[in-house]
């Protein structure tokens, strides 16, 4: 018997994966795409419907202008061309949660097309080509009754709530993505994660993945290493978290590799992702292949966004997150590795604000990714939830810069802040953390150190000035850390004549 899946390394040794990603994002418009019903999540069933979104006989759609505007925003942010003229089309198929039994969508005339974006994985930048972004509407939501725990299989009947029907969706489709096999899954994850950040920055969606407002379908196929012949692809539906995207792509690579290496054929099919078991299963497609019979929606007229409108929208776009990162990294002088740590540590926005308050980028990074990240880690909180603000960091660092604190004392100040011991001044006073800047006290301590360590003085005098470090350490210890090490070195050097 052959294994269901190969080890990922074995799979990638024989095959190169090719991916395509389709992401559906629900917009955060106030009203639905074609009617004035609200779009609130979690409202009681069938309280947000009207003749239009219920598909009642006679009702007609009217396009939501903000839905179009959001689609253009997304298109521009993904470096797409914006159609001068495009139409909606009907995608005809029957399903109980679809009120009209056609989905109003776009077919061969999407509003945005031919774009690109970039993602960074392990310091490498990968360019992802965008095929299109188009407008469509969501379906209602079914609850399955009478089977095991709400599953559609084995249910006796279903209950449909049409509150979600007609909520605007943008479908973003990539061209085929070919990256080194070992990076494929991570690139897929990074792409979806990048989209999340982008959509948030654009303000067009709340991107609540837990509420299904961003949903991903992953197409995966394999070709023998080095070959240019594309394999048969599968479409894995509803992969709805960053981690699942990575896992599902990896799973499909290992599953298809097992099928192919056993001499089998990959079936072109829809597959379902199971979050709990981490596998995909066949969607058992019907023998009668769907024929969607697309045609231009006759109840709507073409959308022809004027170039003035498009430019107005372009001018209002926030800086693209990916470009912003590149700019900040350059301004801050961080290495790729440092920048990745900043991003992975969710510290980017905190550092931006801290730097804006006058702190050097290096110092800001040192605190947020050092002492504070450790504290966050220990308490299981996010950096932003620690109760330490960029202003606190800036105030502490200002005292370090003035020589009132050194790093060691500053760490104690943060400890005090985290423990809620009061303001920075109160903590310094209560813990007695001020640096000793009185030269005579330092000279006394230096004298004591020299007297106590004649062997070290001997080494220094015999031409090994580096040995003086031990004396500095002794002085600092004597001063219980409350001395400026640079000042101590300066005075010590004068004393020893080096």
């Amino acid at each position, binding site marked *: 018997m052959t294994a269901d899946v190969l080890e990922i390394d074995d799979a990638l040794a024989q095959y190169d994966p090719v991916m395509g990603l389709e992401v559906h994002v629900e917009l955060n*418009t*106030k*009203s639905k795409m074609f*009617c*004035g*019903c*609200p779009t609130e999540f979690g409202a*009681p*069933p*069938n*309280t*947000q*419907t*009207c*003749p239009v979104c*219920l598909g009642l006989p006679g009702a007609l759609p*009217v*396009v*939501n*202008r*903000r*839905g*179009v505007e959001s689609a253009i925003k997304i298109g521009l942010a993904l470096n797409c061309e914006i159609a001068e*003229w495009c*139409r909606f089309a009907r995608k005809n198929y*029957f*399903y*109980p949660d679809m009120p009209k039994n056609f989905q109003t969508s776009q077919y061969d005339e999407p509003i945005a097309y031919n774009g690109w974006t970039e993602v960074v994985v392990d310091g490498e930048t990968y360019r992802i080509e965008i095929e299109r972004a188009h407008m469509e509407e969501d379906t209602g939501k*079914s*609850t*399955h*009754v*009478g089977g095991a725990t709400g599953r*559609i*299989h*084995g*249910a*006796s*009947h*279903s*209950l*449909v*709530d*049409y509150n979600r029907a007609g909520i605007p969706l943008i479908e973003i489709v990539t061209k085929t993505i070919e990256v080194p096999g070992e990076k494929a899954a991570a690139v897929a994850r990074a792409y979806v994660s990048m989209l999340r950040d982008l959509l948030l920055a654009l303000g067009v969606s709340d991107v609540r993945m837990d509420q299904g407002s961003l949903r991903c379908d992953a197409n995966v196929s394999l070709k023998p290493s080095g070959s240019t012949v594309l394999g048969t692809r599968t479409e894995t539906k509803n992969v709805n978290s960053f981690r699942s995207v990575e896992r599902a792509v990896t799973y499909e690579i290992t599953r298809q590799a097992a099928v192919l290496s056993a001499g089998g054929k990959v079936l072109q099919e829809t597959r379902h992702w199971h979050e709990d078991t981490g596998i995909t299963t066949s969607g058992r497609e019907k023998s*009668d292949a769907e*024929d969607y*019979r697309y045609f*231009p929606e*006759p109840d*709507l*007229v*073409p*959308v*022809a*966004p004027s170039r003035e409108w498009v430019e107005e929208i372009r001018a209002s776009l926030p800086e693209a997150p990916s470009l912003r990162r590149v700019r900040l990294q350059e301004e801050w002088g961080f290495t790729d590795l440092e920048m990745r740590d900043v991003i992975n540590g969710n510290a980017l926005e905190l550092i931006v604000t801290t730097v804006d308050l006058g702190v050097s980028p290096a110092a800001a990074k040192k605190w947020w990714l050092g002492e504070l990240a450790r504290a966050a880690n220990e308490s299981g909180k996010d950096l932003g939830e620690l109760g330490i603000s960029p202003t606190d960091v800036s105030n502490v660092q200002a005292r370090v810069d003035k020589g009132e604190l050194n790093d060691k004392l500053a760490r104690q100040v943060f400890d005090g802040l985290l423990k809620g011991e009061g303001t920075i001044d109160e903590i310094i006073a209560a813990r007695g953390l001020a640096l000793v800047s009185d030269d005579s006290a330092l000279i006394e301590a230096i004298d004591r150190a020299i007297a106590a360590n004649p062997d070290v003085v001997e080494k220094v005098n015999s031409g090994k000035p580096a040995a003086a470090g031990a004396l500095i350490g002794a002085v600092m210890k004597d001063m219980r850390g409350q001395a400026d090490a640079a000042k101590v070195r300066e005075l010590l050097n004068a004393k020893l004549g080096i």
Partner: protein
Amino acid sequence: MPSITREEVAHLARLARIELTDDELDHLAPQLDQIITWVGQVSQVAADDIPPTSHALPLTNVMRADENVPCLTPEQALSGAPAAEEQRFRVPRILEED
């Protein structure tokens, strides 16, 4: 050769979700064949360089502001439902029994 076969008509009926009887198929297939041949004469019109018309009048950019309007009450929404349960439309099982 007919422009559409009985099997094709049966396939169309499945696509269109109509459970046609055998008698209906027998009757409809030749009728559709006749109609399709007749309407097929549009393909004789030389129109390669002619743009298609989907709307009688060339309107564009008909859009509404993103504003809410009152909804139906759930009672109104469900008033025509053949079956309802828990303020939802009750529909038969979606998958065929295994």
